[in-house]
């Protein structure tokens, strides 16, 4: 395998604010690479630079050997972009949208017609291809949004949080389609703030926070960073004080970390099952009612928590 994308110390600044700070990574041909991080971490800005939309303040990147700053047109011919927000003409039908965007990528004639038919089949909208996009459900629009990015068979597909704000069924369909595309040989750069999506899809994951890439590797490599630690998650009532519970739990033996997000206390411990009873006892002592409990083996969420002290939802 060889690298289709190489980013070296990419920087994007807006005045004094640094949105992306010296981000470096590479993507090998045929892999799914995820950028995992909370909202505002710099994922979209990174993709925007790589897709030649934004000019980097510093650093450089190449895609297929072409510089994103010096050869933007060559780069654009190699990539497909599925933006986070829907970017479609709602007064056009799905077929008309695909036709317009296909022509923008240089497709024409029979090749275009064939590709439109294939993509419509792929996104499951052949029957409704002649309806205007504005009549579609949110999930259907998302599928057209993805279809536009696939039309010209890009070598590298950028997917920027494609599952945000859609129903579980559509989400499932999108994740399956990403895996299918990858099986067909397409390289994918996928951004998300859902740990589960990164875990399910990715060959390698880059964890990004506050514009910096704070960890990079396979899931196994990343979870090793938190050792054999497990995660115990306690959900408390709206009227209870989770900070008081977290402070109490930190005094218990074996607790490595206890952090609060909304009404949830996330605890990193060697054995989640063993830590459960003392944690519940502490909650009773403090008069705090626990509504529900989750236990998780070492995962990317725990890695993020370990590295930043915050949950991904923050």
């Amino acid at each position, binding site marked *: 395998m060889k690298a289709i994308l190489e980013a070296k110390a990419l920087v994007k600044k807006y005045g004094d604010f640094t949105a992306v700070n010296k981000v470096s990574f590479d993507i090998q041909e045929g892999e799914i690479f995820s950028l995992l991080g909370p909202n505002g971490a710099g994922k979209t800005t990174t993709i*925007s630079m790589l*897709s*030649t*939309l*934004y000019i980097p303040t510093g650093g450089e990147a190449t895609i297929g050997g072409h510089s994103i700053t010096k050869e933007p*047109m060559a780069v*654009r*011919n190699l*990539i497909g*972009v599925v*933006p986070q*927000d*829907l*970017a*479609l*003409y709602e*007064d*056009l039908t799905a077929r*008309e949208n695909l036709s*317009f*965007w296909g*022509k*923008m*990528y*240089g497709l024409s004639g029979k090749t275009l017609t064939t590709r439109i038919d294939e993509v419509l089949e792929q996104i499951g909208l052949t029957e409704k291809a002649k309806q205007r996009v504005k009549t579609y459900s949110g999930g259907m629009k998302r599928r057209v949004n993805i279809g*536009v990015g696939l039309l010209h068979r890009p070598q590298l597909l950028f997917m920027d949080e494609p599952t945000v704000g859609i129903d579980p069924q559509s989400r499932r369909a999108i994740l399956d389609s990403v895996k299918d595309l990858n099986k067909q040989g397409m390289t994918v750069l996928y951004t998300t703030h859902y740990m589960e999506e990164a875990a399910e899809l990715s060959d390698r994951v880059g964890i990004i926070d506050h514009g910096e890439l704070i960890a990079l590797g396979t899931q196994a490599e990343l979870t090793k960073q938190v050792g054999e630690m497990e995660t115990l998650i306690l959900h408390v009532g709206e009227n209870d004080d989770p900070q008081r519970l977290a402070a109490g739990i930190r005094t218990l033996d074996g607790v490595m970390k206890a952090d609060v997000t909304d009404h949830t206390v996330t605890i990193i411990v060697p054995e989640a099952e063993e830590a459960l009873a003392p944690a519940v006892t502490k909650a009773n002592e403090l008069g705090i009612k626990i509504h529900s409990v989750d236990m998780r083996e070492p995962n990317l969420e725990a890695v993020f928590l370990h590295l930043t002290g915050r949950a991904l939802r923050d």
Partner: protein
Amino acid sequence: MRKILLIGLKDLILVIRDKAALTFMLLAPFLLTLGLGAVTGAFGSSSSGISQMKIILVNQDGGQLGRALVDLFQSADLADLVAPALVADPETARAQIDAGDAVAAIIIPAGFTDNIIPANNQAPSGEALQIEVYKNPLSPVSAGVIQSIVEEFISRVETGRVGGQVIVTQMLAAGLITPDQVNAIALEMGQRQANAVDQAPAIALQAAQSGQPQKAFNPMAYMAPGMALMFLMYTVSNGGRSILTEQALGTLPRLLVSPTNGAQVLIGKILGVYVTGVIQMFILIEACSALFGIQWGDSVGILVLVLTAVFAATGWGMLVTSLARTPGQVSSIGTAIMLIFGILGGSFIQVSIMPGWFQVFSKITPNAWGLDGFTILGLGGSLADLGKPLLGLAVMGLVLFAVSIFVFSRRSFAQK
């Protein structure tokens, strides 16, 4: 080039599918033309255009020039356009106008002829006597037409008088006549001039000069292009707005990450706005021809005028878009400009009857230049007569596009 055309075509399709925009672009100007026609009396007779405008003549002069002006309005040449009535007293005439019985009263003061052509051996009085056109404010267009006829008449008289003075002075300087012959020759020339005015009415002369058949002025031919040009400003600002709308919707950034450069996108968008404006103008022109019987004039002239007027208007649309930050701002500024230009450019009130400063300011609008062009064509002119309006519109468009492109180049549409 293909991508530019594709972007323009896509925008045209989107406009056609936008029912609200279509209503504003096509139905609103048509209905306003209809409404203004009714208000101004354009439908007051069985004829489709304004005709048989009631006017009142008060001739207190008794000289040749006063008689010539009365004869002009009573001539067969203007029979279709005006229905004159003679009244002896100026106050009665003004009262009839105030009551809305006629569109204007023309009051020729006593001694008007003698003021311009002094009787034998009499010196000019030195006091300038003026013909008064007392207008009905509810019929501004019709009254404006009457005023234009009177102004043309006075202009011809003035031209003859001044020309005569110059000739006599030069003859004297050249020694062709002696000082004691000056009065007699000047009087002879003045009488000949008065006879010439009497015999060759100004309107008939204008038609003869153009080489075209004489045309009755149809005020609908003024209102319809006025409204079309005003709503053209809506179309171009709405089109410009689509650039910022695409930015907000994410389709513009998506275009900019396809193998399409920024210039292609911008030119494609401008092309879409331009073509939409041209189509709108021709639909309105054809509809007004069919329904109001408007004769727009030389078709080549109309084509070139529309293309140039839409070019200038599109320049305004792009300037507004380049300066605005949100689609909402373009809508607000665009609507304000549409109305201000409509008033300033003569879509509601004929610019020629407004004060001088107003007429100067009106020239910043495509409406004023465009209306000048449509009026020239409506009165029988051809493409060759459109030099000034076409030049004004072309220069306006070029300047506005240059400024817009400069402003566009300094802002990034990629970054939200």
